[in-house]
């Protein structure tokens, strides 16, 4: 029997912009099959891999959702009206996770843009709105910060803060995905903003164009839910660790050198960077990437792992890299994890803390303080 089916805007590219399609079928499933036979690919929009209707799609027969009827087996009468609606109801009863704060429904554009995420049960529209509400701070827009910020922006993380005061140098381009040849000499923050806006104009980029210091860390870090460390020196690494712990924030840590990478997640109470490395090496003992070199692609591996851990934290899925230190060796392509424990003697997060506020990290690390370069693009570049 002929049935009319309403095609939502985002799906109409398949139906040559037809808003209504008339097909034959005695059940909802038959009608969907008939539409797919005429417009191949329609299937992929309305079914997930288990061939169930995913949580972000509602199908109505006349004005009743088919979950309240017999699902896709719902029988149809001549002249029935079907509608496929990918919109998402806000508030209680939303599919996905009930813990999502009430917020606007995803727009059809968002549903399409993020559909590869949304169709996964672990994400769903509720998870996508969690990502949209998330505020993540990325320390450094360099080797690690680039893939982290790009993947967060692509995933629709609503607010991405970036701490960066450096200028793009030619030697950065071997690995720092946020910056391109034409950006050499530009402020890294500006370059990062442009790249991220081109990837996804819907996310808000908040720039903090100054070195992170003991004076400004508590103005910046508490504004965010999760902190990602892509810092390029030990002083900033300990500063970010202490400020994140003292602000009660989860810290997603990563570091790289040569062909090696390390990554872990510190949640307050489960250990911190000081539990892992109680003291920094004396200056000059562990070389920097500028001195020793680093494989460009290892920044992508470790940065993608950091972005994945942020994603898991926001969505509260899987097993976070908490209490484990992941080691990546690009030459043997071995991934190993070591146990990471909270040290009861830790001066920051141990039983008897002695570090209760931020200290002078340059002095702690024996390194000269970071100085922001003059705004004029200069040939001398850092490498962050």
């Amino acid at each position, binding site marked *: 029997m002929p049935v009319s089916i309403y095609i939502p805007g985002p799906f109409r590219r398949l139906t040559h912009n037809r808003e209504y399609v008339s097909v034959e079928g005695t059940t909802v499933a038959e009608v969907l099959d008939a539409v797919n036979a005429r417009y191949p690919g329609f299937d992929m929009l309305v079914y997930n891999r288990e061939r169930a209707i995913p949580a972000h799609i509602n199908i109505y027969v006349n004005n009743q959702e088919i979950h309240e009827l017999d699902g896709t087996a719902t029988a149809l009468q001549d002249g029935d009206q079907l509608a496929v609606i990918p919109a998402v109801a806000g508030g209680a009863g939303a599919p996905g996770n009930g813990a999502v704060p009430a917020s606007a429904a995803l727009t059809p554009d968002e549903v399409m843009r993020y559909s590869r995420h949304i169709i996964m049960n672990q994400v769903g529209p509720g998870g996508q709105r969690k990502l949209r509400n998330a505020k993540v701070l990325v320390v450094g827009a360099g080797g690690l910060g680039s893939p982290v910020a790009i993947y967060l922006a692509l995933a629709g993380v609503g607010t991405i803060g970036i701490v960066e005061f450096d200028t793009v140098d030619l030697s950065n381009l071997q690995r720092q995905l946020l910056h391109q040849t034409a950006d050499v000499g530009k402020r890294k923050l500006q370059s990062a903003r442009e790249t991220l806006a081109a990837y996804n104009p819907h996310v808000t980029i908040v720039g903090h164009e100054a070195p992170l210091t003991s004076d400004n860390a508590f103005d910046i870090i508490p504004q965010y839910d999760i902190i990602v460390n892509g810092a390029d020196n030990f002083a900033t690494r300990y500063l970010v660790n202490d400020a994140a712990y003292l602000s009660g924030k989860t810290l997603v840590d990563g570091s790289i050198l040569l062909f*090696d990478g390390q990554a872990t997640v510190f949640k307050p109470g489960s250990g911190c960077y000081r539990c892992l490395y109680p003291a920094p090496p004396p200056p000059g003992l562990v*070389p920097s990437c500028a001195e020793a070199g680093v494989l460009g692609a290892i920044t992508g591996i470790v940065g993608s792992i950091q972005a994945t851990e942020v994603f898991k934290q926001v969505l509260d899925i899987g097993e976070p890299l908490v209490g484990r230190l992941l080691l990546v060796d690009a030459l043997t392509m071995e991934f190993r994890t070591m146990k990471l424990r909270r040290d009861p003697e830790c001066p920051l997060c141990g039983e008897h803390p002695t570090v209760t506020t931020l200290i002078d990290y340059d002095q702690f690390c024996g390194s000269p303080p970071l100085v922001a370069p003059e705004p004029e693009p200069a040939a001398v570049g850092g490498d962050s």
Partner: protein
Amino acid sequence: MAVQVQVTSVIQKVVDGQRQLDAEGLNVAELIDDIERRYPGFRAQLMDEHGQLHRFVNIYLNDEDIRFMQGAATALSDGDCVSILPALAGGCHLP
């Protein structure tokens, strides 16, 4: 005890660029001595002159940090794997 030692990153340069080597010792301190005999300068990467392990280099017996075991006195068994792992700073910046 025959133990496999995995060396990461910058410490490889003192063991002729090897990422993995075999060594002997009843405990971690003896193991370090054994490698030091073959690769002078190795010990200084891990310990100060008083035999205290550096706090920016971690040594793991299998997947456990020896600081949470018996430190350099941690006993070794045949077939154990010891990993030596210095802190890395990068990101990347000029020093």
